[in-house]
């Protein structure tokens, strides 16, 4: 057996290549190891700085929340600014009203608004998100153009939070400028939009209705579905027009919006639709709008071939406030097997809730 010092690289070029591949693998592994250690150390440093910053500034921020007048503020060095804003944001998300204004005042005194405006345009993606959130809380009108541009960006998270910032700053103006865009985008999470609009419904409702009326027929169904999911109310005439539309998708979405008694005639007509989804939505709407005369109609639908239609019909019947227990029991006993089963199930569900 030769000793290891006699190692000779084989003449075969592939084996040589493999050898060097192995060497570089080892080298890279070493680099990776060093990188891990470097990351750890930098994370530790950041954690310590964060703790020090929290100890120094949290009492002052809490005082601002409580509405106290703050005298001299300590110096906020440049490199601590981002950490400060993170802490500030966390507190901003927890409070509202005067407390929020107190936090805004202290941020402005420290020049954070200026800093955030710079980050909004020239920072990396994470910094831009941070700046967007901060400027939204500060209701910073000066950043309006930059934020408006961000709303049109392709990136889902950045754009939807820019919209949030605009709505915080000036809900009416945001509605006017952004409503059509809202109806077109399908990558903004519904829960996020719900958050954004919850305090701005009065400003957005009329503008969205108007934007909806100007939407093209192809884009109408998803836009209408969005409006329905957000529980925006449409003007009666507009809703009635949609309910009479020949397009199935438009009718489906419009039925979700049917909440007022004016449209009950159209809703009743849709109970006889050949499309089971329309029957389903009509039944659901009737549960909220129906009167005594609808009991018979809903009862027919208890025997519908589609499971979901039967289910919602049973729920609708139970939701009608004027049916007594005896009447319900009689309904159950005199219907066919499918209807009876469904009624029994829904009764049990109601009991459980």
């Amino acid at each position: 057996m030769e000793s290891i010092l006699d190692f000779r690289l084989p003449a075969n070029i592939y084996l040589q290549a493999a050898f060097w591949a192995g060497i570089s693998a080892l080298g890279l592994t070493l680099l990776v190891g060093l990188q891990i250690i470097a990351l750890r150390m930098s994370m530790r440093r950041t954690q310590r700085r964060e703790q020090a910053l929290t100890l120094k500034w949290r009492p002052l921020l809490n005082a601002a929340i409580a509405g106290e007048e703050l005298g001299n503020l300590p110096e906020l060095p440049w490199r601590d600014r981002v950490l400060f804003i993170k802490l500030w944001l966390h507190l901003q998300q927890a409070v509202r009203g005067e407390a929020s204004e107190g936090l805004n005042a202290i941020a402005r005194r420290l020049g954070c608004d200026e800093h955030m405006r710079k980050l909004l345009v020239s920072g990396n993606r994470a910094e831009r998100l941070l700046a967007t959130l901060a400027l939204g809380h500060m209701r910073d009108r000066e950043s309006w153009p930059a934020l408006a541009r961000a709303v049109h960006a392709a990136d889902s998270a950045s754009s939807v939070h820019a919209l949030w910032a605009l709505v915080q700053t000036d809900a009416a103006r945001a509605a006017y400028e952004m409503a059509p865009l809202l109806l077109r985008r399908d990558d903004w999470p519904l829960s996020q939009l719900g958050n954004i609009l919850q305090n701005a419904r009065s400003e957005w409702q009329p503008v969205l209705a108007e934007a909806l009326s100007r939407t093209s027929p192809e884009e109408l169904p998803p836009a209408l579905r969005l409006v329905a999911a957000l529980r925006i109310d449409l003007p009666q005439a507009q809703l009635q027009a949609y309910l009479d539309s020949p397009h199935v998708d438009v009718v489906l979405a419009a039925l979700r919006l049917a909440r007022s008694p004016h449209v009950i005639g159209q809703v009743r007509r849709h109970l006889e639709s050949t499309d089971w989804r329309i029957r389903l939505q009509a039944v659901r709407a009737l549960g909220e709008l129906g009167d005594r005369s609808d009991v018979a109609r809903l009862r027919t639908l208890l025997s519908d071939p589609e499971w979901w239609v039967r289910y919602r019909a049973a729920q609708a019947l139970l939701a009608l406030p004027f049916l007594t227990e005896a009447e319900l029991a009689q309904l159950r006993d005199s219907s066919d097997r499918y209807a009876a089963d469904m009624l029994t199930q829904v009764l049990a569900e109601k009991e459980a809730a």
Partner: protein
Amino acid sequence: MTPDSPLVQVITVCVLAYFILLNGGYLLLNFLAMFALRRRAQEAVLDELPQVYSALEPPISILVPAYNEEATIAASVRSMLQLSYSEMEVIVINDGSSDRTLQVLTDEFSLVPFPEAYRIQLETSPVRAIYRSTRFPNLRVIDKANGGKADSLNAGINAARYPLFCGVDADSILQRDSLQRLVRPFLGDPHMVASGGTVRIANGCEVRGGFLTRVGMPRSPWALFQVVEYLRAFLFGRLGWSVINGMLIISGAFGLFRKETVVAVGGYTPKSIGEDMELVVRMHRKLRARGIPYKIEFVPDPVCWTEAPEDRKQLRNQRIRWQRGLSESLSSNWGLMFSRHGGVAGWLAFPFFILFEWLGALVEMLGYLFMAVAWWQGWISWESFAIFLFVAVGLGILLSAFGLLLEEISFHLYQRPGQLLLLAAVVIAENFGYRQLNSWWRLVGLYRWARGGEAKWGVMTRKASWQRDIT
């Protein structure tokens, strides 16, 4: 054969090329994963803020198939009920347990019979009864004849009321925000049909009331190897595939699906061993064949934890089972391979799995065998053999180290320096025996599948002792 004959040279080069391609492929996937992690990190500021709900998140039905889980089912279900989510229902499916699982559920949750108008969209073995809980209005229990996990999930799908369903293992340990994290891909993308994560090793961690409270490292060497293995292969490898929409596996331990899509492709295949993978591969195949735009995304966050086998026998059985499941999933979906509209799934992911995951065990073992024999017989010089070992082990170590780096960048669960050192040692040690042993087990699994033997699940003794109950 003579030393350095052309045949020997060719085979040697082939073997080396295989190892380089295998590890190189994984390295590439890890790079892709890094992009996804970078994007996540940029949005980290949003995660740290106190969450505000608006009740517009899609409602979810959680399906929990259970077979002989009397020791742990109560704690499991209770923790699922405590998941923070705006609207969800929990459906436990008792798959004909022979122990007291149903009784434990009845007592713990005050179950009463529920007259459900059961709707059969997917065929399953007979359902005996359906119960609801009087204490928790959103909990139902289905009692059915034994039919396997896939069958139970299908029964759960039949009873599920909501558009999304989440398949969870009864022994999965979740965190309160697990569901919120898993649903995220669905929020911003209407084409999303499935999202899943991978499980993390719960051995050595502190678990209370069914939730993970403190991350720790396992003591058992087998579990330690698995920790590194999961980081290297199951976590960032899959994240890489997800970036290019080629993810073929969603762990059955915690996965979220669009119910309508799953029913349309036929639900889970009963009697399948790897039903979780088989469903996903079938979804790729059928959706691509029909030209329906879709997306399946991987959520890398540590949201689901499970107990890993700590002794050789259990681990061996698990890996054999996995390989059989893999074989089944691939073989019943050949249509995806190089199919016309196959996309990344059909042209990259499927072939990759065939070559490196499925046949991989065979090639690896034959490779090792050949090189060892060739050296012993003097067909190749000892330098060649050394280079082979060098490359095989060296690349393996690099890959494991890279997995460790990605973990450090993204989640840094193991924060103490001692843990890091231990992991580093395991990263090296893993390649001197564990990986090879794994390949051997996978080869056995492949052989068993090819022979068509009966599936042996093996009984994994559930260690209820470390699941400390809070009462």
